[in-house]
């Protein structure tokens, strides 16, 4: 982070910044906080992981300065914030690419369409779509075993929204786990498995898994089935299975110089650091937009 104004003023900053929320966003915020230590050693930044929902509750009560979120704030949470007189700004910090995976020895699935994913995962599939050949006749007449994140995770939320069309609408008879490592274990030992989870977990376990290219039937953002990768997520061609990750900042906190400095530092470094911990950075111009948005907001909050 080469921010000359902070580099000098940084050493004089002190105080503390409290962050909590999504476990998905945690690694990015942790990385930023770690680097920020060099920037402003006297600022005590703490980060918790009580989930987006738990973080939001604390945020909307004014317990914390910043909340990590793997989804946007819900209307119910927004009204809570308003009731408590809290205004905030939403900032995107990175993308997470959801990856559809199968067992490495699975030689029949070369690609899959969003419609097919819907057919597999929609509520009506429960108890009826049980075999691979029900999706495509040329696929084997073998049982289909499904793996996915727990119903209460942001990942699941986003996946159902993007694939089925309605959030939290899916079949229930799949193997769910809160821990993506557990899903990796499941899919990598089950030849008839199909699952989905965060890109980072695929990337780290490429030898044990096989990613499936996804075709959204929309050639405007890339033709045919597309594999998730740094580039395809970043340029938006891996659609619809990449989701943005956010932080929200409380307006009261922006009255404190250390918070302003921290957020700017965050947006300056999120690109590099998010990639380092397994996520996909936003295009540069988006980071600039976020910075402007924040600057505006902070100014507005001072008045």
């Amino acid at each position, binding site marked *: 982070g080469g921010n000359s104004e902070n580099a000098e003023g940084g050493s004089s900053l002190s105080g503390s910044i409290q962050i909590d929320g999504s476990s998905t966003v945690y*690694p990015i915020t942790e990385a930023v906080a770690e680097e920020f230590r060099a920037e402003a050693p006297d600022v*005590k930044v703490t980060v918790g992981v009580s989930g987006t929902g738990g973080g939001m509750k604390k945020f909307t009560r004014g317990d914390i300065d910043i909340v990590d979120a793997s989804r946007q704030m819900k209307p119910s949470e927004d009204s809570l914030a308003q009731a408590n007189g809290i205004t905030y700004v939403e900032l995107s910090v990175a993308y997470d690419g959801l990856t559809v995976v199968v067992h490495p020895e699975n030689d029949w699935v070369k690609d899959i369409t969003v419609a097919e994913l819907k057919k597999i995962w929609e509520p009506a599939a429960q108890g009826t779509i049980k075999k691979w050949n029900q999706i495509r006749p040329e696929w084997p007449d073998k049982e289909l075993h499904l793996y996915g994140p727990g119903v209460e995770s942001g990942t699941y939320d986003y996946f159902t929204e993007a694939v089925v069309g309605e959030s939290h609408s899916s079949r229930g008879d799949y193997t769910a786990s809160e821990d993506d490592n557990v899903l990796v274990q499941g899919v990598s030992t089950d030849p008839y498995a199909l699952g989905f989870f965060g890109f980072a977990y695929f990337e780290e376990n490429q030898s044990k898994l096989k990613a499936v290219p996804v075709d959204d039937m929309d050639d405007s953002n890339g033709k045919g089935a597309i594999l998730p990768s740094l580039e395809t997520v970043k340029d938006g061609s891996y659609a619809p299975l990449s989701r943005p990750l956010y932080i929200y900042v409380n307006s009261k906190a922006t009255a404190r110089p250390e918070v302003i400095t921290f957020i700017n530092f965050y947006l300056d470094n999120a690109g590099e650091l998010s990639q380092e911990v397994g996520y996909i950075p936003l295009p540069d111009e988006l980071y600039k937009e976020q910075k402007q948005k924040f600057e505006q907001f902070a100014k507005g909050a001072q008045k």
Partner: protein
Amino acid sequence: MTNSDINRLKDKAFQVFGIFCTFIGLVVLAVFLFDIIAEGIARIDWDFLTSLPSRRASRAGILTAWVGTLWILVLTTIIAFPLGVAAGVYLEEYGKKNKMANFLEINIANLAGVPSIIYGLLGLEVFVRQMRLGGSLLAGALTLSLLILPIIIVTTREAIKAVPRSIRDGSYALGASKWQTVWNQVLPASFGGILTGIILALSRAVGEAAPLIVIGALAYVPFTPSTPMDEFTVLPIQIFNWTSRPQEAFLTNAAAAIIILLIITFLLNGIAVYLRNKQQKKVKW
């Protein structure tokens, strides 16, 4: 075969079965320890113990986590030990054997069965919010104290029960008051059993992550707490966090942190076992 031969055979058979069962326990333990140590031992060095958390597995350390765990242990012991033993003594020595006593007894057994996460919810509401302790060490220790209190009470009662009535009679007959009898005779004589309960209780507390996460213990804390009001993290949270990271290297870190957690509990158990054995040598009837 005579009956006596059959009995003898059964006796022998049970002995074999007993060795087998003990063996199973020990083998599983050995497998665990071997597994964890093989994975994590190489990662443990001075830097690991003295470094702050980091996104880079190779640079990440557990300083704040183990210091937090020690704080939590000490505070929890200070809170739960006197409270639990006092409640146990009251119920066993003072409480009349009536409806109220029955109610308390069932109540305590119930508390022992409440999942830890619910204690987290209670701690969040009572200590963090109402008492405004925030996500502090004190709030965490209080929450864990509630969690282990039933275990301490129940085992204290059992230990006290085992002290023969003749010992109490002897003391009362010399003019000792109830409390003097409890303090001078009953508690010393049952101390071994009480310690066993505390060991089990504390080792449960030291491994808990969920209730602490609920009350707001943090994952990333770049400073060691210096007062009970400070924010904190503990080893189980650090371990939990690391095991859910995609990078393999963090799993190694988690194993290393587990080794440290085990060392802490070993030391703890070691002290208590030493005291208990010393005690059991002294008291025999």
